């Protein structure tokens, strides 16, 4: 499906927050590297996908009614084998069905850890679409080291963002660690700008964390909010 089709479908079914598998497909279509996220329609399928994906995996609930998945006890990380997936599936569904009988589960590989970054987009009432970049994961809460630019971004804006955060030194190889892939990072920031410029019904994107590696990047968690009204 194209970006527009994914947004059309979500809006048609009355959802503003995309399911993570939809967000993944949308980001992938926009050229943004994102962790695979597949929907399992049942317990056996969850196990089959996990085997195809390769262990360890992550299981998360997929439900319009449950937006705070971790709080609802509906996220299981680091599942190492088939047995763990069986148990996790049952555990999630037991809780989720109480809230949403139509709830499903998604299966994702556990990405190998990298430096945690944040790339996002928000629609500000005054400035309109604004791209955010900074240190991600728990570092966001700790340092709030995030910088913003108005859409559309030029390549120099992305470069400037990368250089202007306080934690910029971390990206360039701090204390013997290898530097992260700055080209790939610049690419993600620009792709987010291009994506929302072309599809202004996207109101919010939150890629946090994005794992930054010496070669390549991977958006591990993604949240995309759309809205019909312009």
């Amino acid at each position, binding site marked *: 499906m194209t970006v527009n089709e994914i947004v059309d479908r979500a809006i048609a079914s009355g959802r503003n927050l995309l399911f993570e598998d939809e967000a993944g497909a949308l980001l992938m279509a926009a050229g943004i590297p994102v962790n695979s996220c597949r929907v399992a329609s049942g317990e056996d399928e969850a196990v089959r996908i996990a085997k195809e994906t390769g262990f360890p995996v992550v299981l998360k609930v997929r439900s319009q009614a449950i937006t705070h998945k971790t709080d609802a006890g509906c996220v299981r990380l680091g599942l190492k084998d088939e047995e763990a997936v069986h148990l996790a599936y049952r555990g999630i569904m037991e809780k989720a069905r109480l809230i949403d009988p139509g709830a499903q589960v998604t299966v994702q590989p556990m990405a190998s850890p990298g430096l945690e970054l944040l790339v996002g987009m928000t629609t*500000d009432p*005054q*400035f309109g679409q*604004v791209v955010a970049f900074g240190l991600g994961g728990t570092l966001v809460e700790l340092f709030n080291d995030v910088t913003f630019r*108005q859409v559309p971004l030029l390549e*120099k804006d992305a470069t400037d963002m990368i250089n202007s955060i306080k934690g910029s030194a971390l990206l360039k190889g701090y204390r013997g660690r290898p530097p992260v892939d700055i080209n790939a990072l610049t690419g993600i920031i620009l792709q987010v700008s291009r994506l929302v410029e072309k599809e202004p019904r996207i109101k919010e994107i939150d890629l946090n964390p994005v794992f930054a590696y010496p070669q390549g990047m991977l958006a591990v968690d993604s949240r995309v909010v759309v809205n019909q009204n312009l």
Partner: protein
Amino acid sequence: MSGTRPVDLRPVFYPRRVAVFGVTDTPDRVGYNVLESILHGGFTGKVYPIHPRHEQVLGCKVYKSLEDLPEPVDLAVICLNQDATVEAVEKCGRAGVRGVICNAGGYRETGEVGRDLEKRLIAAAEKYRLPMIGPNTLGMINNDGNFYSTFYPLKIPAGKVSIISQSGGIGLTTIHLAVDEGIGINKFIGVGNCSNLGFTDCLDYLENDDSTAVIGVFIEGSADAGRFVRAAGRVARKKPVVVYKAGRLAEADRYTQTHTGSSAGSFQLYQDILHQYGVFTVNNVSELVAACKALALQPLPEGNRVGILTHTAGPSVVMIDHLAPAGCVIPPLHEKTISRVKQIIGSDNPPVVLKNPLDAAGLGFSRPTYGGLAEAMLADDNVDLLLAVYCLHKTWELPAIELINAHKKYEKPLIVNFVGNWQGCRADQDFMQNAGVPLYTAPEKTAVAAAALVHYGMLRKGGADRDS
């Protein structure tokens, strides 16, 4: 300002005939003060005070109403209460007046009733495509046309810097600081509630105003922040724009709502996006004035390499603290410069460390030596602009002439920091600034002035890479 056809704002800023509504004969009222402001400011056009119950104020004949005036006017300054202002704007529109300034507050900044009233005010202005400054404004000054309409009567030196301010109080602070700093103001626009003419319209006008070379902006918040930042970025590529954005904290937001009816918006978004569009931002009024002064007086540097000449180390340390984060570098001096410096100070004169910043210590007290060192540093190909520090002394004169000559000879930007009190440096400030060399008495101001010059020097070199 909404609408498709651009409205000519020249009659607003360069009126030839002006009506003033609400002129009373007591100096405790706004109308009286606006009339006094116009007269005191030396306006050479016609001014027609209007009030139904007065005959004569400040030696001017007072007319009963707009209809009674002997000729049509370009601009009306409306010094009536918030309700009567709406009616007056309507009358002005009908009579073909080409611009209005509305001083009264009492609109959206006060709540629901005021918000509705402001909508009526805006509708009246828009119906006649009548450009309106305000409401809730101190007024406007055009020093290029000797037109003063602030209700604080002023007469200030004219120059190339124009100021747009959302606040009257900060507007006045900026004006008075500019007087102290010895810089001339070209135009002052108190945009107030920005109900019709906002920041963007004023920037658009000043962009093409030949008498304005530098624009200083004080903004609390704007409903069209997205347009403002783009306009500021576009104008900044043509002439320097310096923005001081207030409302850093969420607490301030609640106050700006009841001040000019605008939400302050995210402070960081303003900072980041103004930076994105190449606009120089400052942190206080003092920096705003300091930056505008240097930009108005000096040529832009070719690069970001700053030379510092001093005879006391501290100020150079403070300057570097401010310069480095602003993207300036303190380059090493060229070998040729070092030999030249050695020659000037002589071989039997030891404790000078031959590097940049060049601290001439006791030798720097001598005016010819200081002037020679300034020339040596300005001649250095590694140096794009020079900051010169010198301390005021009871006996020694400041090396003003030497510095002016050095600047003329090398045509590189030069900023002078005299360590002294304002009165002690006043004569030198006037003398130097008449020759185009800005003088400051605080290293923080000198540094922000240098940072502003470097910022716009680099922006010019970078060329226009953005269309918006």
